C-alpha cells in the first residue's frame, strides 16, 4: 500500500494526464493562430470512440478509434474555421454543441435511451522497473497507465518539432503574423488545418484516456468542461509544450487537493474545495507575472494585409 502522500501525488498525475494531452494538442493548434473552442467536442468524441473501439478490439483499438473520432470532430471545425475562414469562436462553439449532442445521440442509439452501464477494459497502472521505486515521486510519475508514458514522450517530440524544424517555425510564424508567414511562402491554410487536426487527435486521445485509463465507462457529457480547462492550461503554460504539461500538473494538483480535502471529512462547504483549482490558477497567473506572449494573431482569421 502506498503512503498518503504518494497516493495524492499519483492522483495529481492521473488527473493531469488527460488535461495535459488535450492542452498539448491545443498548444500546437493555438500556435498556428487558431483557437479551437471545439476541443471539448473532440474530447467527448474521443471518449465515445474509445468505448466503441475497445468493445471491438481492446484497449489500444479504443485509443486509436478515440483519436480518430477526435480528429474527425476537429476536421469539421477546421473546414469552417480554416478553409472557410469563418469566425473561430462561433465555429468552435457550434462544433462543441454538435459533438456533445452527437455523442449523446449516438450513445442512445447504440446503448438505449436510458443509457447502459458500460464496462470497458481499462489500462491498469504499469510500473516502470526501478524508476517507480524512487521514493515519493516514483509511483506518481512511473506507476501510471502506459498512456501517461506516451504523454512523456510526446512533450520533447512536439517541442523539438515546434522549435527545431522549419515546419514548426512556420507554424509559430502563422500564429504571430500570418501575413509574414504567407509572404515567406508558408502554406498557411494547410499548416493550420494540420495543426487543428493534431489538436483534435490529442483531444480524442484525452477523451479515450478518461474512459480507458480512468472511468472505465462512457457517460454523456463526461468531458465535463475539460476542453475549456485545457484551453486555460495552454495560456497558463504560455503556449509551449512543456509549459502546458506543467500547467496541467498545477491544475491536477489543485484538483487532487480538492479530492483530498473532501475526503478528510471536513465540514467546510464543499464548494470551497471545488473552486480551489480555479482560484489557484488565478493566483499562479498573478504570481508568475511578466511577459505573457500569446500568439499575436490568435483567433484573428483576417489574413488580408493592406
Amino acid at each position: 500500500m502506498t503512503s498518503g502522500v504518494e497516493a495524492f501525488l499519483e492522483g495529481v498525475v492521473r488527473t493531469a494526464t488527460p488535461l495535459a494531452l488535450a492542452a498539448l494538442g491545443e498548444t500546437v493548434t493555438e500556435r498556428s493562430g487558431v483557437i479551437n473552442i471545439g476541443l471539448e467536442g473532440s474530447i467527448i468524441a474521443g471518449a465515445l470512440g474509445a468505448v466503441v473501439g475497445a468493445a471491438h478490439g481492446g484497449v489500444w483499438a479504443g485509443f486509436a478509434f478515440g483519436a480518430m473520432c477526435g480528429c474527425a470532430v476537429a476536421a469539421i471545425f477546421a473546414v469552417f474555421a480554416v478553409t472557410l475562414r469563418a469566425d473561430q469562436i462561433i465555429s468552435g462553439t457550434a462544433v462543441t454543441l454538435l459533438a456533445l449532442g452527437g455523442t449523446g445521440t449516438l450513445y442512445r442509439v447504440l446503448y438505449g435511451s436510458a443509457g447502459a452501464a458500460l464496462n470497458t477494459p481499462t489500462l491498469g497502472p504499469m510500473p516502470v522497473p526501478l524508476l517507480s521505486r524512487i521514493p515519493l515521486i516514483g509511483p506518481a510519475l512511473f506507476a501510471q497507465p502506459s498512456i501517461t508514458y506516451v504523454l512523456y514522450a510526446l512533450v520533447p517530440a512536439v517541442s523539438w518539432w515546434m522549435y527545431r524544424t522549419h515546419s514548426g517555425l512556420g507554424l509559430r510564424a502563422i500564429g504571430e503574423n500570418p501575413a509574414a508567414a504567407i509572404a515567406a511562402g508558408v502554406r498557411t491554410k494547410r499548416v493550420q488545418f494540420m495543426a487543428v487536426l493534431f489538436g483534435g487527435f490529442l483531444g480524442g486521445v484525452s477523451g479515450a484516456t478518461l474512459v480507458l485509463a480512468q472511468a472505465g465507462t462512457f457517460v454523456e457529457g463526461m468531458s465535463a468542461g475539460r476542453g475549456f480547462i485545457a484551453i486555460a492550461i495552454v495560456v497558463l503554460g504560455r503556449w509551449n509544450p512543456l509549459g502546458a504539461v506543467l500547467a496541467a500538473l498545477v491544475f491536477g494538483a489543485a484538483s487532487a487537493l480538492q479530492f483530498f480535502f473532501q475526503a478528510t471529512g471536513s465540514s467546510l462547504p464543499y464548494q470551497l474545495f471545488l473552486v480551489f483549482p480555479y482560484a489557484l490558477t488565478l493566483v499562479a497567473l498573478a504570481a508568475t507575472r511578466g511577459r505573457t506572449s500569446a500568439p499575436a494573431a490568435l483567433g484573428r482569421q483576417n489574413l488580408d494585409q493592406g
Partner: protein
Amino acid sequence: GAPVENRKPVTNQFKVALVTTGPISDQGWNAGAYKGLLMIRDSLGARISNVQTQTPAEIDENFRQYGAQSYNLVFGHGFEYQDPAIRVAPSFPMTAFATTSGTRTAPNVAGVTFAFSDGAYLAGIVAGAASHSGVIGTIGGTQVPPVVAAFKAFEAGARSVNPNVKLLTAYVGNWEDASAAKEQAMAQIARGADVIFQDADAAGLGVFQAARQAKTVRVIGSNSDQNEVAPEVTLGSVVIDLPRAMMMIARDVRNNTFKGHVYQLGDADGVVLWVANPKLAGEVSPATVARLDAAKKVIDAGTLKVPE
C-alpha cells in the same frame, strides 16, 4: 371524403409529459423517470412527451406549453420544478402537475417525496456491518435535498451497527464526471474508506471502477438496481422504483382521484427498496440480515424515525 381523423383534437387521449433537468441517459434519477414515462405509455396507452431543461428559465416555458396543449399530467422531476409549477398551474386547471422532491401543493399541483432514506438506512446497516476499517464513504453529485437526506439516513443506519463509524462525504460537483467521481472515491479509499455509497447518477459509475481497482472496497449503488454494474464489489443498491411511483400518480389522474397533496412514497409502498446483491450474499452475515429485517419492519410500521 377527406380523412378527418387527424384533424379532430384527440381530447380523450391521455397525455403525460416529463420534464427533467439532466439527460435521460444518466442511468439514475432521470433514466428512472424516463422508464416510468415509457411504462405509462405502454400500460395506460398515454401519449408521452419529454423535455430536458437547461435552466430554470425554461421550466415555465415548458409547463405553459404542456398546459396549453391540454396535457393531463406533467411531471417536473426535481425540486427546481415546484415554484414554477405553483406559478403556472392556476392558468391550466385541467392539467395536473407533479413535482418530485417537491412539497408545495396547489389544487392541481402535487409533490412527490421518496423516503429514499428508508432504503439508505438499510444500506447503512449493511455498510456499517461490512466495514472493517470503520470508515465509510458517501459520494454525491451535487448537494441536493434527496441526496443530503439519503446520506444522513445512511449514516444513521451505519451507526446503529457501529456507533464509532466514521463517515466521509464528497460531492463531485456535477452528475456526469465519472472520472472525477472515481478520483473522489480513490481519495476516500486512501483515507481508509472500505464501503462507499454513491448517489451521483452517471458520474457514480466511476466509484464502481475505483472499488474494482482497489479490490477490497465495496460499493452501494443507488436509484436503480446497480448490482450488475460491478457484481464483484457491489453489496447492493438502494432502488427508487420511479416507474411504480409515476404509475400510481398517473392512475390517480386518469381515475380523477388526483389531489394536490404530497405523495410520500417509501419502503411500505414498494417504491423505495433495498436490493441486496445475491452474488455477494456471503459477505453479509446472518446477524446483519436479521438486523435488516427487523429495521424494515420498524420502518414499514412507521415507528422508526429515519433522520431527514
